[in-house]
């Protein structure tokens, strides 16, 4: 594994700066993580963190609406942002000689967003985001799965109970005053991490960062985040059937699991791969190839830190296979791995897949920058990027068994079953 060089700096205004140089190609990535996501939203304001992210592309004191993208693309780069439960990230990748452009654009909106805000821009982006919700959730088969899982996994009042995309009603209610308040509360250099990865001279990059971000004032009173404490186990199985406009039944099973960054999460990440990574995985082999009850299987662990993370499995039924039979087959395989644990061959397989996967992800500087920001923002430890493989390889069979026994229990699972609806009305 390559050992990525990491330089850490702290600006007087609290901005954490991570530099990781790699001059193989003349390209550079800039990535900012703000420690604010949908779990910091207030009741009745679901979806606001994400709507706000859109407003960050609507111009600032020295940048016109849409100009952020125009300047970055005109420089031969790409730019985007995303919002999730714990954080919001903003990023650019561009030819290395345009590094300062990205830093300037990011600093201008952090330093001077509000003077450029208008009701017209808010109304426009509200419409865009509502269409984003329609495209990804409301008009998609199985599209409501993650918001339903979150709702059933976390109690009312927990900040993961509601989805990042938010509800239409809450999006409708968002006001310019909300934009001002949210910006003032969360968008401050002392609530952010800035990473530069790729081809640059560290000393001059740091000077550019100081020049553009240095004048921005910190917020000495970043609000307390809403409480995240939640029982590690739900206590009883939760089930829901969803009639939807889908051709095949699909089961989503989800469990509370230890939070991202913990040893328990690491162990269950290995379990995720044992069950679902590749055609030799336990679930593919048993459900798809041998018993032929499933059309596909997917397993995933949400890397989040708000009290519990989320272990997810989904399996789609083959035509003609009832969802009860599919569900029984699924539990049998999960239980088999929980009881017996992985063999040495199983572990060798997933470790090698994982190591190759990390290597592949880190080929791209934008992915390096994003992970460095992530580890710095969530754990104040960007160096974790260099221990991804060793942490994974440190998980042995006993840890997998113990972690599965602790979390993958019937009284800790949500079972969400999508069934083909009889009519469009029923699927509504």
């Amino acid at each position, binding site marked *: 594994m390559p050992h990525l060089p990491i330089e850490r700096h702290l600006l007087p205004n609290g901005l954490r700066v991570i530099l990781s140089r790699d001059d193989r190609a003349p390209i550079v990535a800039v990535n900012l993580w703000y420690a604010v996501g949908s779990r910091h939203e207030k009741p009745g304001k679901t979806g606001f963190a994400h709507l706000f992210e859109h407003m960050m592309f609507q111009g600032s004191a020295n940048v016109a609406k849409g100009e952020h*993208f125009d*300047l970055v693309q005109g420089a*031969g780069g790409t730019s985007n942002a995303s919002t999730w439960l714990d954080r919001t990230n903003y990023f650019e990748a561009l030819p290395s000689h345009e590094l300062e452009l990205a830093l300037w654009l990011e600093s201008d909106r952090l330093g001077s967003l509000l003077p450029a805000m208008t009701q017209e821009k808010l109304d*426009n982006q509200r419409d865009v985001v509502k269409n984003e919700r*329609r*495209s990804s959730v409301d008009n998609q088969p199985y599209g409501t799965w993650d918001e339903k899982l979150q709702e059933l996994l976390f109690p009312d009042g927990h900040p993961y109970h509601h989805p990042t995309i938010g509800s239409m009603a809450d999006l409708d209610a968002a006001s310019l005053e909300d934009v001002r308040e949210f910006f003032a509360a969360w968008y401050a250099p002392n609530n952010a991490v800035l990473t530069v990865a790729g081809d640059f001279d560290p000393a001059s990059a740091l000077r550019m960062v100081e020049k553009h971000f240095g004048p921005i004032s910190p917020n000495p009173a970043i609000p307390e985040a809403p409480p995240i404490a939640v029982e590690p186990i739900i206590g009883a199985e939760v089930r829901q059937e969803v009639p939807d406009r889908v051709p*095949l039944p699909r089961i989503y099973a989800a469990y509370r699991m230890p939070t991202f960054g913990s040893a328990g999460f690491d162990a269950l990440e290995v379990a995720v791969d044992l069950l679902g990574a590749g055609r030799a995985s336990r679930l593919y082999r048993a459900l798809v190839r041998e018993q032929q009850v499933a059309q596909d299987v997917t397993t995933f662990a949400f890397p989040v830190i708000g009290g519990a993370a989320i272990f997810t499995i989904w399996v789609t039924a083959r035509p003609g296979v009832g969802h009860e039979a599919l569900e029984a087959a699924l539990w049998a395989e999960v239980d088999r791995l929980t009881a017996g644990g992985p063999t040495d061959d199983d572990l060798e397989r997933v470790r*090698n897949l994982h190591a190759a996967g990390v290597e592949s992800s880190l080929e791209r500087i934008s992915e390096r920058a994003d992970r460095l920001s992530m580890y710095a923002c969530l754990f104040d430890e960007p160096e974790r990027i260099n221990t991804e493989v060793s942490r994974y390889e440190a998980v042995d069979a006993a840890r997998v068994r113990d972690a599965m026994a602790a979390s993958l229990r019937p009284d800790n699972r949500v079972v969400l079953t999508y069934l083909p609806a009889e009519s469009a009305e029923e699927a509504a």
Partner: protein
Amino acid sequence: MTSTLNPMRPAAGLPRPYHFPSFSRRQLANGLNVWTVPVAGASLVNVHLLVDAGAAAEDEPHGGVAALTAQLLVTGTRRLDAAAFAEATERLGIEVSSESSWDSARAAFQSLPQHLDAGLALLAEMVREPRFDAGEFERLKAERLADILQSRSEPGRLADEMFLQHAYATDTPYRRVSAGGPETVQTLARDDVIGFHGDHYRPGLAHLVIAGAFDDDAVAASVERHLASWDGIGPGHRTIAPHPGGDRRIVIVDRPGSVQSELRVGHIGIDRYDPRYFPAIVMSTVLGGMFGSRLNRRLREELGYTYGARSGFDARRSAGVFTAAAAVQTDVTAPAIGELVGLLEAARTAPFGDAELKEARDFQVGIFPLRFESTGGIAAAIEPIAIYGLADDFWQTYRDRIEAVGAAEAQAAAVELIRPTELLILAVGDASAIREDVAALGIAPVEVVPAP
């Protein structure tokens, strides 16, 4: 809150030159073309084996046999059954893929350099001596049929499929998706796959691309060991003749209860050999290939009708389609169609501005090193050169050819390649909610068809 923000866009530094990695190609005695692309500093190696066994190599009664053959390759070899083959590859950290498009079939993997020889051995074994187990054949055929059901339940994929079905005025294979429709996939037998494989999976028209970290001599020895004794030359592919589009028309694919309409507006486009290829790229980038493109700026950033609007050409050996696309909320379907059609018409008549043209060229030129930052991206970049027989210096000259597209060339591309009288305007949406408004646009006859 601050006093000393810098009002001016900072000047760019001095650009550091970038060159697409140089590569070499040679041909084995059996006809296999071997392309090697060493990438300095790479920590992975990618192997792509391209065979002239895409959908263009099948015949219509067997539509889908190319895709099914490709998918079946990963289910084992004469020596290793499906489970054993998956174990053998994944224990090396390798996930082998095998898939097909219209113009090629591709078997590929990525690995750490130390597993290159073992990976290549397994790839060669899978392509040369596939098992085609009867049970696995039935399983994958059923999976393909179910995948068709799934894809038709997704409005975006349904719109793409239905656009192809309605874009061509006369019967052509291009009316369908390359992986085949249910009517022909249903009839495929295991012997069809065995026959297709035996005919087409031959080294004579094949290309092996190796890009990333490897030792030249070791690779040469590996290729020799695993592929030199492969033999034969396949029959190649059919020529799919160009087909005309129709007159301007509106087709609503009824999907009751939809809260959005998936729009596709366009017609027959260009083939991969078209001399207007570069002007077409620049023109389409201005129109719908950037965030600030005309389509996205208008439909998203001004009107809020959609999460995103875009346009592009699908250039194959013969002419694929040109489409402008957006998913819009149901109640603005008619005005959104009006906007899309208006912007396509305006591309022919309203002169391209210097600023938008410059941004499009600068984007395509500047993005060049980012496109090739991964070794997989570099291996993929060799594919069009190999498959379409493009010049070896295609990527070396790419940026100059983009830069050479001026306003006159872009305008000519728009005038020649966008034909408003031939537009197929297709909407996957709730016909009961949109039909009347769409008809009232008065821009074309409206036909409502059921979703398949």
